[in-house]
Structure formats: C-alpha cells, structure tokens
C-alpha cells in the first residue's frame, strides 16, 4: 500500500481574530485505508476535512503546514480526486434541480459523459447506492426523497468523480439507526469495490469502530491520540479518549452502568487553557500539564498519544 495523503503541521486560522482552529496536526492516509476522526463538536474535525479538500470557508485560512497527495504506480504527482459527503444531505442538495440533473452534470464534469451515456451511468450509480426504480427517480427533486435516500444520492454523486479519497463528515448523524446501518454497510461495500480511501468524521465511536482502520482523537484543534481502531477502543492512552469511550452508553444487557460524563465542557477557542488543553477536565492532570503541551509520544505499536500521564492499559 502506498501513502495517498500526508498532512504535516497543518495550521488553520481565522486571521481576522487570530484564533487557531487547527493547531499543527500530522497524519497520513494510505490508499484504500480508512481514517476516523473523533471528538466533541468544535474540536476541529470538520475543519480538518475542509482543509484536506482545500475548501475552507471564507474568512478561514490555512497558514502553515502542508497537505500533499501522492499518486501510486507511475510515481507522477497529480491531484487525486476527492469527493465529500456531509451531515445533512437534504440541505446539501440544490432544491431546484432534479436528482438526474445533479448526477448528470457531475458525470459530464468528471467523466465527460453526455446525453444517453450520462443518463445510463446515473441510473447505474443510483442502483448501486440502493435506490430502486432508479430510472424514474431521475426526475425527482430532493424534497421528494427521505434523508436516507438523499444521502444515497450524495454518495452516488461522490462516486461519479471516481474519487481516490472520500471524505464523509458525520454522514449518518441525521439519520435513523436503521438507515444508519444501511448507509454504513453501503460505505463498507463501496470501499471494498472501488479501493478508495475514506476519511470519516463522527462523534459516534460506534460508527468509527465499524468503518475505520485507524482513528485519530481530536481535542481543541490538536490530534491528541492516534492508533489502530481496535487498539484505541481497547487500550486508549489519552484520558480524553478514555473519557469519550466511557461516555458512550451501552446497549449490552449485561452492562448496566450509566454513561460516565466528562466534567466541564470544551473550552472556547479564544480562551484555551495553557498547556494541555484538556487538563481542566482531566482527573489525571498535574502541574506540568498546565505548563506545557505534551509532545506526541509512542505508547504502543503505531499508537501515539500526547499526554504526560497516559492511562495504563
């Protein structure tokens, strides 16, 4: 496997207010691999995705670090195709265009398909993502579809670009559990079929456990821990990762313990605490935690954490 994406010391800022949204993060992603980003809202997960896709909103800029893509095989460098799907599919689709128009324009732009070819490919894509009676659905508008069906349309649209990297930002958060199970299975199948890499953002560790190979835990614009997903869930090193796992309610009939809340809340980005940003909420914090941000250190095989007092396995 070759490296598809390398992110080095990425810094993203709101220049007008001098607030760092992402503060020097590093990660890489192999082709065909899935990276999961977890953390509470406001910790920079979505902004990392936008920075990678080079589509940061106006007023927010990348001021440091690099995002590089490498092409395998030929060794030549080219920008790989990236596609992105979002949390709220219905508001991501243009309400005045039909599903067919939406898919056919994407197919023209990315594959040069026109007319009947584009239409047939659009039908094939819709069928692939699990929409039945696809040919007649091309004339439908987004408001005629449910949220789950619109998310399927978004995925079909993403596939039209034949992406090497699909970025999914909370793709199932707005959906019912039954629909979530269907979409997660669809993403699993598509990954295996197309060999694309996937970056998935979710605050639900269950979604990450299901799809990701590696997971990165983010807090206040920094990656505080990164590990293979099984390792992270079974032996988290950073107290924040441990706390995130403990606050997931369980449905196991044997496990009757209620979820353990994390005290306090995520600090505002303009008033981050000194040192480790998590120390005011951390039960293991000591004096040094409030003085310096801990450097990332290996705590296991392919497992790194930024903590002075990692949780023992």
């Amino acid at each position: 496997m070759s490296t598809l994406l390398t992110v080095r010391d990425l810094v993203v800022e709101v220049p007008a207010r001098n607030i760092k949204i992402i503060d020097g993060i590093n990660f890489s992603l192999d082709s065909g691999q899935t990276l999961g980003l977890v953390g509470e809202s406001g910790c920079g997960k979505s902004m990392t995705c936008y920075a990678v896709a080079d589509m940061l909103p106006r007023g927010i800029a990348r001021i440091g670090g690099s995002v590089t893509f490498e092409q395998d095989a030929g060794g030549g460098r080219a920008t790989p195709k990236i596609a992105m799907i979002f949390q709220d599919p219905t508001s991501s689709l243009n309400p005045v265009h039909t599903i067919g128009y939406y898919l056919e324009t994407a197919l023209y732009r990315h594959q040069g398909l026109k007319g009947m070819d584009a239409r047939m490919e659009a039908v094939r894509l819709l069928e692939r993502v699990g929409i039945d009676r696809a040919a007649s659905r091309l004339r439908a508008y987004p408001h005629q579809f449910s949220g789950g069906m619109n998310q399927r349309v978004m995925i079909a649209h993403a596939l039209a670009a034949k992406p090497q990297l699909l970025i999914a930002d909370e793709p199932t958060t707005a959906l019912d559990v039954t629909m979530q199970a269907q979409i997660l299975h669809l993403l699993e199948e598509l990954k295996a079929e197309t060999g694309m890499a996937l970056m998935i953002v979710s605050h639900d560790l269950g979604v990450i456990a299901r799809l990701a190979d590696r997971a990165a835990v983010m807090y206040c614009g920094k990656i505080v821990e990164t590990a293979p997903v099984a390792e992270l869930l079974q032996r988290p090193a950073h107290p924040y990762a441990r706390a995130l796992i403990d606050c997931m309610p369980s449905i196991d009939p044997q496990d009757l313990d209620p979820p353990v809340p994390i005290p306090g809340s995520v600090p505002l980005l303009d008033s981050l605490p000194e040192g480790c940003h998590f120390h005011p909420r951390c039960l293991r914090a000591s004096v040094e935690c409030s003085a310096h941000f801990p450097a990332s250190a290996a705590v296991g095989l392919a497992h790194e954490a930024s903590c002075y007092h990692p949780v023992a396995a």
Partner: protein
Amino acid sequence: MSAPLLKVSGLTKAFRHKTGFFARPTSQLAVNSIDLELAPHERIGVVGESGSGKSTLGRLLLGLTEPTEGDVWFEGVNHKERRERDWKAFRMRTALVQQNPLSALNPQMTVGQQIAEGLLVHHVCNRNFAYERAAAMLERVGLPGAMMNRYPHQMSGGQRQRVVIARALILDPRLVVFDEAVSALDVSVQAQVVALLRSLWQELDLAYVFITHDLRIVRHLVDRIAVMYLGRVVEMGDIRSVYAWPRHPYTRALLASVPSLDPAIRNIEPPIKGERDASKVSTGCAFRSRCPFAIDRCAIETPELRHVGGQQVACHLADELPKSIASPGGTLSPRTAVAQEMAL
C-alpha cells in the same frame, strides 16, 4: 399498584393531507389506537424511527393536539372534560422538553426571567421569591446562579438544555414529556444530562415519558419502554427484558442496527432494508413489507398486543422466533435461524 397518573385508551390521531390540488384528501394515522398507563414516579421510554408517531403521542398526552379518537386521563380526569381553568391547573402539573433548546428559549429574555416565568404566570409567588427559586433551580441543574442574567445565545447547547429542564421543573410537575431532549447534544454532554435526569428523578415526585430514537441513551433513563412503528405500539415491557430478548422483529432490527463498539463486528448486512412506507398499510401488520419473518397471515390479520414472555408484543410469530438472533451484530440470518429452530 397505585392509581395511574396517566391513562390512555384507544388513542388515535389522523392527519389529513392532499397529494395534489385535485386529489382527494387522504388521512394518515400518526397515532393508531394506543393504550398506555403510567404510574406516579414511573419512567417510560418511547422509541421508533422518525415518522413513527412518537412526538404526536407526546403532544396528545399533554393535550397540545386534539385526538381524533380515544381518551387521555391525567390524575383521573379526562382531557375532554377539562375546562379552561382545569387546563391551567393541568399545565402547572405537566411540562414538555423539546429537542432544540435554542428554539425553545426566548432570545430576548434572560435565563432567570424564563425560569421564573412559570411561577409568575401561575401566581405561585411574588417576583422576588420567584427569582430566588429560579436561582436555586438553576443551581440544582448544575449551572452557577450567576447565569441568571445571561441570554440563551451566550450559553452552550448543553447549558441551554439544562435551562430548559430547569424551566420545566420549576413548578414541580408530576409529569414531564421529554421529546428528543438529548438528541442534539454531544455524547459527553449527553452523558451529563443523563446523569442529571437520573438524579432529579430520584429526588422529585416525577413521572416522565422519554421520547427518542436513540436506543442507547434511553436504556439508562427509563424502567419501561414502548416501541412504536407507524403509529402503533409493537412492543412494550420492562426495559431490561426487552433489551435482553426483544420479541418483535422490528425491535430486534432496531437493536441490531445500533453500531457496536467492537471493531471486529463489520460487514454485517443491515438488519432491515428499505424505509417505512405508510401508504402501503391498509390491513395486516404495518411492518410486514420489511419483516424477514413475514407469513401470509401478517397481510390479512393485524396483530394485537399480547403478553409474550415478560412483555407485550404485537406480532403473530412473537413466541415462535428464537432468542439466538437477538444479540446485536449476530451474523446468523433470520431465516436460517428460524429454520434451525424448527429443525430442533
């Protein structure tokens, strides 16, 4: 058992809608002949997919929507017999907490004003005392009393939801309906609100109905659960027995759809395909088009709620389905499981 706080019988709500300008209006049953009882200080969860009628049920219980058929009794009084003055007394003893705290709160009033408002509207006490009680309530839900003078936009989502809970509890109600009260919150904040609700319930003489689509969170908040599908209760019972052995295929599917924290469980087929489709429901079981176990009888005869094991289930096959596939993430396909069971 003491007299029920809330009793519901044959509750039905139909919404009429037109598919086109000249189309004949059709009516859809959002809530379909529901019977329910809630004892004082009891907690019940209502779960189901969106569109299953959970929220409509919540509004019917509080008399915010008029039922098409059926009755709701609260403390022995039928909603239909309530007059204006009785409704005011009823409002003092009940409350509703909704999903989005920002839209539930008035942006132009301080948090303190909004919490105290209930006391003032119902002339419970004078202004000074009302503010004192509001401040005490604010601290009880875990916010500093100094936040009394804040406006909703100056708070985080979790803090706002605490304010809404404080406002709901200021009149010391007997019944609260929580409609997706924690769904919009982050997992960590969700856990905080869950801990708060658990401790509040222990202290107060309060019964609640917790409406949610989140099967993980509800388990830690209620004693009894009702599973709804297209307006009907398809399974009801003690939360532990339902989760240990869900008897209705829909409950099984819901529980099996919850993503597991075990990364070894992958590439499993979704437990049910397709989406709910109210248009197809005329006779028989509404779930049959998605049900892997459906038999001919399901299309003809609508299953009624009946006692199976420790719970009530509306399924013809409830006592024939094996327990083995109930575990979330089970790889056995339902049909082979039934075949195996029959062979034994």
